[in-house]
Structures are given as C-alpha cells and as structure tokens.
C-alpha cells in the first residue's frame, strides 16, 4: 500500500486527462480574461480594440470569474490558465488570480511580459503560479514595432523579465515565428538559454476568431524545416480518443474548455460553433451542453480515407478557424499534410526509419 504514488507530473497529468476524458470531467480550463492588449500584434487572433469589444459584449467582472472558477472547481477543474489579450492590463488581475488559487485550483499564466514590474514580480514570487509563460515577439525594439505596433516593446519586455529573474520567479519563453520576426528566432532562443529557462516556439498562425482581425497569410512562414519536423510526427491515430475520430488529434475533447472574455464557453480558443453560456446557465449545465454538442461533430467525409491523415494536424478547432466549420476541410491544411506525407516517403526511400 503506497499512500503517495511516485510519478512525474506529466504522467500524472496524462492519467488524470485519460480519466477525465472517459468520464467527461472538465479538469483543465482557460479563462480568457480580456481581449484587450497593450500590444497590437498583426498575427493575434483574439485582440480587440476597446470600442470593438464594447460592440461585441462586455468584460466579466473579477467576482464573476471567481464565481465561475468556484463552479468549475466543484465540477472537477483542477487547473486554469489565465490568458488574454494581456492579463496584466486588468487592474483587478491580482484579486482574480489570488482568489482562484485559493479555491485549490492550479493557476497558470500567459503574458507578453511588458507590464511585469517589481510589484507583479513580488506577487508571483510570494504566490507562485503553476507556470508562467512569457511570449516574445522579437529580439529588438524594431521587430516589436514592426510586428506588434509598439515602441520600446523589446526593452519593456526585457525589463519585465529582469524583474522576474530578480524575484526568482520561474518562467518559460515562447516565440511565434512569422515572416516579420523569424530573423530574431535564434536570438530569442539564446535569450532563453541565458536566462536558463524553457523555450518553445511555434509557427502555426490561425485566422482571427470571435470578431478579431489579423493577417495570417502574409505572416505565415512555410520553412523547409517545418516540413522536416512534420515527417517525424506520425500520430498514433485512434489510440487517443476512442469514439470520435474528429478529435483524434485533440487533447481537449471531453476534459478541457475555454471561456472567452465575453463569457462564451467552447472546447478551445478556435471554436465558437459549439458555444455555451456558463455565466447564464451555470458552469455544469454549460459543460454538459458543450460535451453533447462536440460529440456530434464529425470528421469530414474527405478525411476518412485520406492517405495523408496521419500527417495532418487538423482538429475541429483548426478546421473551424480555417474554414468556418469544424466539419469542413481547409485546402491549406490538406496541402501541408500532403507535403509532410511526401517528405516522409522521400525520407523512407533514403533509408530513414
């Protein structure tokens, strides 16, 4: 009889995810606290101006988010990520953060880092988040000006990171590669090494959702290295989520949710076709409604026999962002899968594993 099982957090989390998926328990959530941001990044799929936000809806108050977290906890949520927009633009961020933590929920944060000062660093030192991810957009003020439309962006972010380092607050850096900042990729990666922190990068840009606007097509990079990586990524299709092939590349299905700034709940940031209204009907009712709706999403007919399917990263969320429906294919994604598949065949013909 072992009272404290020994296993890594990753393995423990995946065990939890599997149980939650089986039982339909909403263990992981994201609260998108605001669409407002002090940056204006050209690839952002969420950011709204204040006027546009007011046209579309309203921000939820701190008390509303805290009550929603309480309801979510009672339904089984163990971890919530707070994101935006930029979370630190909210003057009531501290109240939301501390009170959700005190419910016994692990809280992770995503920020652009530019508004982190000594006060916020002290807060995060004294009450550490489960994780803090700072997204960087370049390694110079000129790159930030070009991509994010702000002056001194890099200097402000570096100042924020220094505050975190001085306060011994752990963080990771992430970097979104676009045509306007890709030349800074190595520099940002080196910065992460200098800070001795984790680093992740992505190159997937998604069309704007929920009333926002962006320009993914001119910003998207299609590096040869992108395809090189794709050929190694052969998902074990079918093993992840028995019962709904549409979600066989999705980790959120039946265990995660996203509540946007306007109070709509869906399975992820990219979806809104299955949306439910937890602030109106209550969390549990909205969650039950959501898992019913997504269980009726089907894999597009074209995908069922597609020979590139194991090389395709499309999920209902990506399909919806790209085509407007979780059940429609996107020619761009199909081409990517075909490219990856052909690269894989070429790799194998040269004797690769």
């Amino acid at each position, binding site marked *: *009889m*072992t*009272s*404290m*099982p020994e*296993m890594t*957090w990753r393995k*423990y989390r995946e*065990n*939890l995810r599997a*149980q*939650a998926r*089986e*039982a339909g*328990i909403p*263990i992981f959530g994201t609260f998108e606290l605001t669409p407002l941001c002090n940056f204006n990044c050209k690839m952002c799929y969420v950011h709204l101006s204040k006027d546009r936000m007011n046209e579309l809806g309203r921000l939820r108050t701190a008390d509303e988010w805290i009550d929603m977290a309480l309801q979510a906890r009672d339904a*089984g949520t*163990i971890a919530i990520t707070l994101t935006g927009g930029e979370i630190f633009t909210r003057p009531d961020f501290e109240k939301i953060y501390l009170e959700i*933590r*005190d*419910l*016994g*929920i*692990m809280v992770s944060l995503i920020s652009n880092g530019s508004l982190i000062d000594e006060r916020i660093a002290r807060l995060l*030192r*004294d*009450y*550490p988040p*489960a994780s803090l991810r700072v997204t960087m957009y370049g390694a110079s003020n000129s790159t930030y000006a070009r991509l994010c439309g702000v002056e001194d962006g890099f200097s402000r972010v570096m100042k924020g990171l220094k505050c975190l380092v001085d306060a011994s607050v752990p963080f990771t850096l992430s970097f979104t590669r676009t045509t306007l900042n890709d030349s800074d990729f190595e520099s940002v990666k080196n910065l992460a090494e200098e800070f001795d922190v984790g680093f992740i990068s992505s190159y997937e840009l998604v069309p704007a959702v929920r009333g926002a606007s962006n320009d993914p097509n001119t910003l998207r990079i299609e590096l040869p290295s992108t395809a090189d990586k794709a050929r190694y990524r052969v998902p074990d299709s079918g093993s992840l989520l028995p019962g709904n092939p549409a979600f066989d590349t999705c980790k959120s299905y039946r265990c995660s949710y996203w509540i946007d700034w306007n109070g709509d709940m869906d399975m992820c940031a990219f979806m809104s076709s299955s949306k439910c209204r937890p602030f109106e009907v209550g969390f549990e009712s909205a969650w039950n409604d959501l898992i019913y709706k997504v269980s009726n999403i089907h894999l597009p007919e074209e995908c069922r026999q597609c020979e590139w399917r194991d090389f395709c990263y499309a999920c209902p969320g990506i399909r919806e962002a790209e085509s407007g429906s979780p059940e429609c294919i996107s020619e761009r994604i199909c081409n990517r899968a075909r490219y990856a598949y052909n690269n894989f065949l070429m790799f194998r013909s040269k004797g690769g594993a």
Partner: protein
Amino acid sequence: MKIASGFVRRSVGDSHMVVPVGTRTRDIPGVIALSESGALLWEKLEQGATEDELVEALLAEYEVEREQAEVDVKAFVAELSDKGVLEE
C-alpha cells in the same frame, strides 16, 4: 497531529491530490498526489488524528495486516512531516 492550513484536497475520478494554496506554493509547487489510502489518511489528519487512529482507519477500510498498516502510516506521516504539512 493535524494538517496545517494552506492545502485543499481534491479528487478527480479515481485520482486524489492535494493542491497547496496561498504562500504554500512557494514550498510545494504543483500537487501532492495521493493514493486512495493516502486520501483516507489525509482526511483523518484534517480533523486531527494520532498514528494509532490512522492505523485503525486503514484496518477498518482495507484488508491489510496491522504490521503493514503501521509501517505505512509511519512512512506517510514521516513524508508529510518532511514536507512541513503537519502541525501538532
């Protein structure tokens, strides 16, 4: 002995865990994973319990030899003490 303040016990499906809250997360990042028997002992300790009472709780709930239950309780209590979770 008793569980100190700053911990919230949670259960999801068959998994049991304790999430540190407040400034406790500075000392214990992440969660403390508990087995089913660990969750039972933790629950008893939330209300205050002696080692003998913990052993009795295990014997009442599981088919286990007293000697084994005593060993397990001692190990569990020692680990919690090391983590600074227990108070007198």
